[in-house]
């Protein structure tokens, strides 16, 4: 037998018991050739192109799932930022495009379609401004469309006008979807240093330097790492790092195999493996539980940030060795509502928004799926975003904010979406005002780090 008994059992144990799965296979499709001055022709071209490339995406992915015995949790599509396709359009036309994307996504059976996006870190074009204003209607009238807006980067600084605009848009989205726990906000990400080949929604889009079509894969597998750490006992940090690397290496290799095979099946080029460790709300599939297994009492305890930094670094080192095409976010994700351990820590009062912010400085991706009271003001949201983007800008890393100011809810309540989006307790927000700061307007200039030439 070319494989040891134990090796085969290890793989079976990972896939059958420890929740190892592929989080997403995301097909990125360029829609740049779909632009037309007539909106009906544009939407028709978009619809036809998505169906042409991704028509069999779900079927092909399912076949690969069966062949290798590894499940793929999500099948998704990302497209060129729609503001680029429709720069000449107004809000009504953009909403028609959103509806077209939704229709195409439903037709081909994917979970989400992402790329209702604009990149405005240095300023707005007319079309970008129109797209952003259309986001509340677009997200409340569609099911599967995800939006993202990049408002800051290390090279351009933080566009505070965009931050203020987006904080109002978030409030509006929350209001428009208040009958469903403000679910629209779970489909809207605000970015600093957004990446072009990210397979994870809601922040995915098919960047302008990407090819015609490509297939990116996002792996998962906190459960596997958790079990490995638990069974290793009290080993020292170097040994722990080695252990995480060995485990992640195997997971990444399997992820790359699945991605390549799905790409091959669709007859399109393979893009990247995003080596992020992404949790799911299932018990045991949690980043928080890994941190606890590393030795902290609960997430939020002193030492949490260091533990996360070490985990994240080991994940990256293993992934780099395992795959020749690493990209996307590539770090550990700490979404609150999608991680049973994070939810528990918030419920017990162990994890505050401030500690969560500190944790985002050492991993991907930012304040993700955080629910706050509906009464939180737009200026406070802008302050939270400015802080998060300052971390991203100064450290030359991606940070994002996906925050849900749940209308009519306050601390002690929950938002509950089910599925992968999970449920989140409302976190308290500091009552101190940031209004006079954020409303100064203009841009926070790019840091000295941007001058690398």
């Amino acid at each position, binding site marked *: *037998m070319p494989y040891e008994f134990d090796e085969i059992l290890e793989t079976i144990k990972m896939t059958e018991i420890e929740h190892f799965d592929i989080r997403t296979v995301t097909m990125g499709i360029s829609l740049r050739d779909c632009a037309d001055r007539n909106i009906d022709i544009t939407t028709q071209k978009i619809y036809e192109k998505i169906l042409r490339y991704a028509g069999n995406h779900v079927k092909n992915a399912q076949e690969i799932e*069966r062949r290798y015995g590894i499940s793929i949790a999500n099948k998704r599509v990302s497209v060129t930022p729609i503001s680029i396709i429709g720069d000449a359009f107004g809000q009504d036309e953009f909403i028609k495009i959103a509806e077209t994307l939704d229709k195409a996504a439903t037709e081909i059976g994917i979970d989400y379609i992402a790329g209702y996006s604009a990149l405005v870190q240095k300023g707005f074009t007319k079309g970008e401004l129109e797209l952003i204003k259309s986001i509340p209607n677009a997200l409340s009238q569609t099911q599967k469309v995800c939006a993202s807006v990049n408002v800051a980067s290390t090279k351009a600084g933080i566009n505070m006008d965009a931050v203020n605009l987006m904080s109002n848009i978030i409030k509006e989205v929350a209001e428009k979807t208040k009958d469903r726990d403000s679910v629209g906000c779970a489909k809207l990400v605000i970015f600093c240093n957004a990446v072009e080949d990210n397979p994870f929604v809601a922040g995915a889009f098919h960047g302008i330097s990407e090819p015609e079509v490509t297939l990116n894969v996002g792996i998962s597998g906190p459960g596997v790492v958790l079990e490995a750490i638990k069974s290793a006992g009290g080993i020292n940090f170097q040994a722990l790092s080695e252990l995480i690397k060995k485990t992640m290496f195997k997971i990444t*290799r399997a992820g790359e195999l699945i991605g390549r095979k799905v790409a*091959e099946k669709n007859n399109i080029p393979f893009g990247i493996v995003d080596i992020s460790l992404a949790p799911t709300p299932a018990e045991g599939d949690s980043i928080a539980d890994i941190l606890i297994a590393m030795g902290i009492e609960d997430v939020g305890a002193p030492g949490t940030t260091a533990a996360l930094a070490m985990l994240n670094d080991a994940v990256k080192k293993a992934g780099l060795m395992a795959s020749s095409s690493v990209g996307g976010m590539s770090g550990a994700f700490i979404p609150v509502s999608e991680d049973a351990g994070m939810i528990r820590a918030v419920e017990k009062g162990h994890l505050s928004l401030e500690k969560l912010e500190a944790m985002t400085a050492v991993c991907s991706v930012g304040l993700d799926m955080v629910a706050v009271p509906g009464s939180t003001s737009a200026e406070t949201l802008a302050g939270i975003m400015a802080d998060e983007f300052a971390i991203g800008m100064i450290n030359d890393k991606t940070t994002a904010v996906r925050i849900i100011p749940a209308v009519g809810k306050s601390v002690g309540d929950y938002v509950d979406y089910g599925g992968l989006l999970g449920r989140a307790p409302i976190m308290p927000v500091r009552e101190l005002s940031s209004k006079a700061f954020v409303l100064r307007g203009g841009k926070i200039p790019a840091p000295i780090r941007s001058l690398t030439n």
Partner: protein
Amino acid sequence: MKLTEDKIREFSIQAISELGANASPDAVKKLVEEKIRSSNDFPEGEMNLSSGRVILTSFGLNTTGIVSSISAALSEAQCDILDISQKIMQEFFTMIMMIDITNSPKDIKDMQEIMKSIGEKLKVKIYLQHEDVFRFMHRI
């Protein structure tokens, strides 16, 4: 990468139109071969190893007839057993087989269905996974 007939036809049409008046059978053949090579973004060494080999793993409480039921079904489906390794751990039956389904009229999906019904009858779990997943995870 498995080359489909459609793909070869597409390459041939491309080659003929690119060569235009110079399209002789040899020239077309050469160009199509080149296209097949360059379209293949899968690293060559890995591609050649890809095969019809499948790992069958079975676990459960030990009863009589597990090996015979599984191997009878495999022989009926014209699957070749390349290797077999079986252990009883406490009262648990564990078996790993490497099989080749290249010459079988059934594909891996059909075999998974067949093994599922056998597994239900014998109250054991039977998994069939393509060999590649083990090679990718455990071999550098």
